[in-house]
């Protein structure tokens, strides 16, 4: 519970161990179908009455499936917190999960999949996953799922995933905003106090190692821009090197202006409108990717320049000021992130979800500042090899260079 004076609303984040990592092996899409079906009414109210109740509060609500957790997120006016949490609890603990609800969200998901086939960012992302992760790996498919699974998922399967993944053990509720901590604990206890369940055993996933360069270009007809995803299997959020990797990521390409690849690809050479990199924070090796939107004529050059900048980092050619800038930016973002209840809640949720320690938020800026040039070079050499990577391109035909 994070009280923030001077606000009118409360942000709620409820993370449950029902993300892709916890999805039944070989059934990508079940987690998202379950999450969407949970928003189609409860044991007490049909879908229409549930929507009426949510909108009567003027509150927002969504349930997203991430690589690790399924996260219910929403916002309500301060006075409505009790009623809102009651509705959230009813939604996650006793969803209807009825045939009609499943068929509705199945049709929606199939339409989303149809759209994704023509969306260059989605195609590039899915292609990169297929190049990187082996069959059966929880991250081989985007959370939207595999079309065959979405078509065939049964109500029994959805209910089983809800039973196994949506339980009090392992779930984290964070409230931030216009609240009194004691009162918020009371209303949360009233709403969720009877929720029970035990954590499922951890899923065993073998480490992913790329054995060389893997590249695939997919032509998406009648598009003008190509989307590029270049990446490596990253490292678990709980890996002690994760903070060093975040600084290395910032030096490399995390930001269009503060990072080496971003500066050169966009600012100096004008090759792309957007270019950025990110490392997913999850229980296992989430994607560590560079993404950019590039004119087909410029694709090869943009990729080549990105590798050149990565090579410089691996060789230790990092200006002191570039490293200081990366550290300062990451520390400064923590401070600026406090401007919103969502930002505050997100930071607390990450620390709780990955058990980073009660003092994580106080310790983390110091850990970022302690990262050295040698740390960054070591991370880049170990985790961002120049000859073992996956590269996916989706869009118009790439001209022969």
């Amino acid at each position: 519970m994070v009280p923030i004076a001077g606000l009118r609303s409360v942000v709620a984040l409820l993370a449950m161990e029902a993300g892709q990592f916890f999805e039944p092996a070989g059934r990508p899409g079940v987690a998202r179908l379950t999450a969407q079906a949970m928003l189609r009414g409860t044991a007490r109210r049909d879908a229409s009455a549930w929507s009426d109740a949510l909108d009567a509060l003027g509150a927002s609500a969504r349930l997203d499936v991430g690589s690790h957790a399924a996260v219910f997120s929403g916002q309500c006016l301060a006075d409505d917190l009790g009623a809102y949490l009651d509705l959230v609890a009813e939604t996650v603990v006793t969803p209807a999960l009825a045939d009609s609800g499943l068929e509705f969200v199945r049709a929606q998901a199939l339409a989303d999949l149809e759209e994704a086939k023509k969306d260059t960012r989605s195609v590039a992302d899915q292609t990169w996953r297929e190049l990187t992760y082996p069959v059966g790996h929880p991250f081989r498919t985007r959370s939207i799922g595999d079309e065959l699974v979405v078509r065939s998922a049964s109500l029994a399967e959805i209910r089983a995933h809800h039973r196994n993944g949506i339980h009090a053990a392992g779930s984290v509720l964070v409230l931030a905003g216009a609240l009194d901590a004691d009162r918020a604990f009371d209303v949360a206890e009233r709403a969720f106090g009877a929720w029970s369940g035990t954590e499922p055993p951890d899923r065993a996933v073998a480490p992913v190692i790329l054995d060389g360069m893997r590249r695939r270009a997919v032509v998406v007809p009648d598009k003008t821009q190509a989307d590029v995803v270049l990446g490596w299997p990253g490292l678990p959020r709980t890996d002690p090197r994760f903070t060093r990797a975040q600084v290395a990521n910032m030096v490399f390409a995390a930001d269009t202006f503060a990072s080496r690849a971003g500066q050169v690809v966009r600012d100096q050479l004008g090759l792309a409108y957007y270019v950025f990199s990110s490392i997913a924070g999850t229980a296992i090796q989430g994607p560590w990717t560079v993404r950019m939107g590039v004119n087909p004529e410029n694709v090869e050059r943009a990729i080549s320049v990105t590798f050149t900048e990565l090579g410089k980092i691996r060789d230790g050619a990092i200006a002191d000021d570039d490293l200081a800038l990366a550290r300062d930016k990451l520390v400064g973002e923590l401070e600026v992130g406090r401007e919103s209840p969502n930002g505050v809640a997100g930071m607390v949720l990450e620390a709780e979800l990955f058990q980073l320690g009660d003092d994580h938020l106080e310790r983390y800026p110091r850990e970022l500042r302690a990262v050295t040039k040698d740390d960054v070079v070591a991370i880049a050499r170990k985790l961002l090899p120049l000859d073992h990577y996956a590269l996916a391109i989706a869009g118009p035909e790439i001209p022969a260079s």
Partner: protein
Amino acid sequence: MIHALEARHAPVVSVWVWYNVGGRNEVPGTTGMSHFLEHMLFKGTPVHPKGDLDRLLARYGAQWNAFTNEDVTCYFETVPRDRYGVALELEADRMRNALISIEEVEAERTVIVSEREGYENDPSFLLGESLQAVAFDRHPYGQGVIGSKFEIKLMTRDGLYAHYRRHYAPNNAYVVVVGDDSAESLVERAARSFGAVAAEQVVAPPLAPEPPQMGEKRLVVHRAGGALPLVQVGFHTVAASDPRAASLQALGVALAGGSGGDAASGRSSRLYRALVETQLATDVDASFGLTKDPYLFTIEATVRPGVTHRAVEDALLRELRRLADEPIEEAEFARVRRGLLASVAFPSDTITWRAFRLGSLLSSGAASSIGAWYDALARVTPDDVRRAATETFVERSRTVGHFIPEAG
């Protein structure tokens, strides 16, 4: 003009500069000039050469960016409290001293073409751009904002520089500062930063209003680069300064809720129930934008596979008629009202968004403060919403667009 709001919940200040220049200030052949110029304001001044500003703000962990729309070009930085003086100084400097070299214009041209190409990958953008062009015969709102690829390629450094000198001056801008300092201090420091920048004679030739539309217009966009068909409908409507603006915002919430996208909120709205729950469409959105001149009330529906455009369009228009013909019941209006007020309250709890909200109300002429706008929304009655629907959803002022994906 400087406006400030104290917001003490985080040690952060958000600085915004809103220039009264956008797509509406452009003429055919040079459409996209305001947007191109926005990019050039990140290329340095004599005091802060290129890269200075980027690195300085990045070092603070700032959230910063810029955008251009039909009415305004806007720059903002959200920074730790003790750095906001720097943000003010940077903005005051680039208000009049941007370098805009030929070399940088050439380098940025490909970036802007790339931005345009990214939009072109999106069927909703393609259809929306065409619908806007068809809906307006005379007013520059029909030209859009980014310009065509050809216009971007023809833009000259001298043209951009002239546009900059003509429109970038303190007397053609709103400075909005919100955050962790007293309102007096925020105003005083902003005034000190911008006080040295001389006012210019800003020549804004009067814009002739769009003549009334005399009948329904229709268009079709075919392209392989989209999977699902779309229906868009635009109705000519009023400017943000019109007293009916708050009712039109309420009308948007009644039709499609306030959130859109994957959020579960707004599912009790009229169009969600009539189009999505019935499985005619996968998604629907309705919006009334706050603009200086009368623009469009727009509705977009994504047609579900196997359903025809006509079926979706008929159901959509039926719901619009129903809203105009039948009173909204008390329980439904209570939900609309709650959603409307939450749509102001929620973003306002974030400092950056509070500053954005104030700036957009001021620059569009919708209200003089967030409180005044909140009050205007709170005063909306069911009859106001019904009247807004009756006045707006008129066949002769309607433009209907269909996006038809082709096999590819």
